[in-house]
């Protein structure tokens, strides 16, 4: 009785002492939060780009000694989801950098601020049209580059003259699809690319005269143009037999790096790697669709900075200033120097760094025949509807007509659900 109580007392004391000991480390570890004063830029830039961004931020801090800035990297999809979480939780970065299509959902959810009244008119006038991202009459994003679009890349050791039309492309690829050792397995391809992903199919959709949506963000997938484009891809695989049976991004990338495909359709994010490994790489426009005579239409998009809607007062002013710095001619050319990006300001485009570069010249020509990527959130629903149906065409389970109908129907359904 009395003893028991003493026992219990001692018992619990000892137990808690043991546990408290274990909790002490926690007290010293509630540290490490960055200063509230830091201007934070979230971005999805590749490593080389981040290095340039770091140097720009350092330079900015030298000009403005009372300001500190830092950048945080997130992969594109995470950038979107983490920004949503942070905003809902009452915080988030001051500037968020990413592709133009994030403007759609962010502006819809009121996470980013309209900035057309916050920036000087003559600053804005210095940009090409495609360099400023407007939606519903408001400016939401100022870019430091345009492009990020697909091109035709070819291995100059195998091909000297890239094809200009799809018929030429098919002929060339047929010649180059070789089974070297006769074991029934193709060893080299003429053309391989991430064709299973709709984004990499869209250039041909455009080449056949179709597109993913109209001006009101309604999907336009159940028309003859889509069916023709589906049929074209199906023929590439089953009739002309020039495509690998399975080819995702990494497979095509590996084939090109190993010199086992003469051509690949890829974007500027991949050039640095190919060039760094000493590849003799040539750049060309994705061929004209022979049936229509139109050039293939890759999606062209700017990437830029948006302003967190929660900023106000002096901090907002400072952030706007930083934004102007990061999108100035000098900043843009800094990126161009390292990553061969196309600037979005008129004066930067006239710099000899740009005009004298062969690759950039071709890249800009490709951008000219391309079409701006829509920034509407509906685009994502369209990708999600297009993807499975397109893949069904590729593996033979659906006919092009069925797939086009189904894609349209599913896109409309998802858009309706999203807009509830």
């Amino acid at each position, binding site marked *: 009785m009395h003893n028991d109580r003493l026992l219990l007392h001692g018992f619990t004391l000892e137990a808690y002492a043991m546990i408290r000991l274990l909790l002490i480390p926690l007290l010293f570890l509630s540290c490490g939060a960055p200063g509230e004063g830091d201007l934070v830029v979230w971005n999805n830039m590749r490593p080389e780009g981040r290095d340039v961004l770091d140097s720009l931020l350092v330079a900015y801090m030298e000009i403005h000694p009372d300001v500190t800035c830092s950048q945080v990297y997130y992969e594109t999809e995470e950038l979107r989801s983490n920004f949503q979480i942070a905003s*809902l939780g009452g915080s988030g970065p001051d500037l968020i950098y990413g592709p133009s299509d994030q403007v759609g959902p962010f502006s819809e959810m009121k996470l980013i601020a309209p900035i057309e009244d916050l920036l000087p008119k003559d600053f804005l006038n210095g940009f090409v049209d495609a360099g400023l991202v407007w939606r519903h009459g408001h400016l939401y994003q100022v870019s430091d580059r345009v492009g990020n679009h697909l091109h035709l890349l070819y291995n100059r050791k195998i091909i000297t003259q890239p094809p200009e039309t799809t018929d030429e492309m098919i002929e060339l690829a047929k010649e180059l699809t070789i089974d070297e050792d006769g074991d029934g397995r193709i060893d080299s391809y003429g053309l391989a690319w991430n064709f299973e992903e709709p984004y990499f199919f869209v250039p041909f959709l455009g080449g056949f005269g179709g597109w993913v949506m109209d001006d009101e963000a309604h999907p336009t997938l159940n028309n003859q143009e889509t069916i023709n484009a589906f049929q074209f891809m199906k023929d590439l695989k089953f009739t002309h037999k020039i495509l690998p049976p399975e080819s995702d991004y990494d497979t095509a990338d590996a084939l090109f790096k190993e010199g086992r495909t003469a051509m690949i359709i890829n974007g500027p994010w991949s050039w640095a790697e190919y060039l760094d490994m000493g590849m003799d790489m040539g750049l060309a426009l994705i061929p004209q669709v022979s049936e229509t005579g139109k050039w293939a239409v890759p999606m062209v998009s700017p990437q830029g900075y948006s302003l967190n809607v929660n900023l106000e007062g002096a901090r907002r002013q400072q952030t706007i200033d930083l934004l102007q710095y990061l999108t100035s001619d000098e900043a843009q050319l800094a990126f161009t120097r390292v990553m061969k990006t196309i600037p979005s300001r008129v004066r930067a485009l006239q710099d000899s760094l740009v005009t004298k570069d062969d690759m950039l010249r071709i890249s800009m020509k490709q951008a000219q025949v391309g079409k701006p990527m829509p920034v509407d959130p509906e685009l994502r629903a369209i990708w999600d509807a297009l993807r499975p149906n397109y893949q069904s065409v590729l*593996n033979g389970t659906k006919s092009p007509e069925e797939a086009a109908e189904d894609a349209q129907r599913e896109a409309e359904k998802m858009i309706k659900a999203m807009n509830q």
Partner: protein
Amino acid sequence: MKRQTIAYSFALPAFIVLGLVVIFPFFYNVVLSLSNMSMRHFWDWKITGLDRYVEVFKEGIFYTTLLKTFAWTFINVFFHVVIGVSLALLLNRPLPGRAIIRTLLVLPWAVPQYITALTWRGMFHFEYGAVNLVLDKVFGVQGVAWLSQPLTTFGACLITNIWLGFPFMMIIALGGLQSIPAELYEAAVVDGASRWQRLWKITIPLLRPVLVPAISLGIIWTFNNFNVIWLVSNGGKPADQVHILVSYVYRAVFNLYRFGYAAALSMVIFGILLLMSVRFIKSTKGTEAVY
């Protein structure tokens, strides 16, 4: 009563930590599942009742995906346990070199899942993948186009996840085997019991207290583990057929911003798992002592 206080004081710290971390998020989700939070109603969402739940149950996809999820879960856990326990039994014998073998067998658990899952994806490639090459050269069987058809892709995901999961069960079983007194086996041998009988009458029942938590939680984790499926199938390919329930939640939230719907779907997943676990635990009497 005093014993009760001792018990409570022992158990309380753990439950306090748990409660703090989990209760608020849980109830937040309950509220969200009854609301209309979405892209258009991001800040100004309201409670709208059970609409989201109706949406969940109305979609035919829900039921087919649920079935796939069950298949995924039970096939995985079955192999995890069978392989893990068998290996533990084999390693429990005095074999020279077993420490090295044991350590090597733990590798799948130790190396980060992201890159091993993608490596497996590469191994299932039709032409260049190691799996087909082994099938061809060692077994003389024609290669399978693993990632081109939904069913075989599902199989590829299963094999990958089994590879990832068996070491854990093996570790549990190895630990559990230590709790079985050697005299029980000796007495059984004296009584003339065969190896098989010793396995089923002694080993398995006495492993139960340690295996039941592992299996129950294994079921729950596997049910909710869409990482592996996502990585090996590259996002549900081909044609979006390779999905389990949680990947739908993920898509609903991050691609279509349907937060209320995703919350409701999460609650439904929770309900299903709760029912399954309670039944499993009750049937294996996992909450009781063994002696």
